[in-house]
């Protein structure tokens, strides 16, 4: 069946270092991917998205990389800050899809 992502691992990173969060997906028909950030007590917030016709997209301090060959995407956060501490989710959908399928999330803890 479809699956996206990993069950909640934790990434500890020193403030100022770069963070890389990984996500695997299994549905080869997936053509649109989104990264969300969820802070404690809040709903998920959109960070960045990427379509399957791209392999890289950059935002402010964030970069998403997509490798369709191995069905893998990653989120890179540059110069990680304490405010980046949260749970990060990848999500995927298909062109004719009605829903997002979320991965299991990765908790990022930023150490001062």
């Amino acid at each position, binding site marked *: 069946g479809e699956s996206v992502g990993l069950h909640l691992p934790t990434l500890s990173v020193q403030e100022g270092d770069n963070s890389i969060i990984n996500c695997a997906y299994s549905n080869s028909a997936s053509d649109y991917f989104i990264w969300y950030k969820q802070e404690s007590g809040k*709903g998920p917030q959109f960070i960045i998205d990427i379509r399957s016709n791209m392999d890289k997209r950059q935002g402010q301090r964030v970069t998403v990389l997509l490798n369709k060959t191995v069905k893998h995407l990653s989120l890179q956060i540059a110069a990680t800050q304490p405010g980046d501490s949260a749970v990060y989710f990848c999500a995927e959908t298909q062109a004719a899809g009605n829903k997002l399928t979320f991965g299991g999330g990765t908790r990022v803890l930023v150490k001062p």
Partner: protein
Amino acid sequence: DTAVSQTPKYLVTQMGNDKSIKCEQNLGHDTMYWYKQDSKKFLKIMFSYNNKELIINETVPNRFSPKSPDKAHLNLHINSLELGDSAVYFCASSQDRGRVHTFGSGTRLTVV
């Protein structure tokens, strides 16, 4: 202005009770969703409505009944609450089906 608002934020109730969670979005989106997030942070879609029409009904007990009086509102009614219903429930909306969601801040339901 809150884009997607859901009430209440916290709900503690006894087994067997019936409760409702309300959701409203002021983004003019056509599609609304209910997600359930378990204790391991896994987000799973429950229902989706597009212009008041039910388009997704995942394997959810029929004790859960969504109602969409108009495209800006999607309420969730739960009958005969069980301990396993304890979770955080998120409402979300999107302009296009299965695309970028805007989430509410969640309703933490605790069944005792």
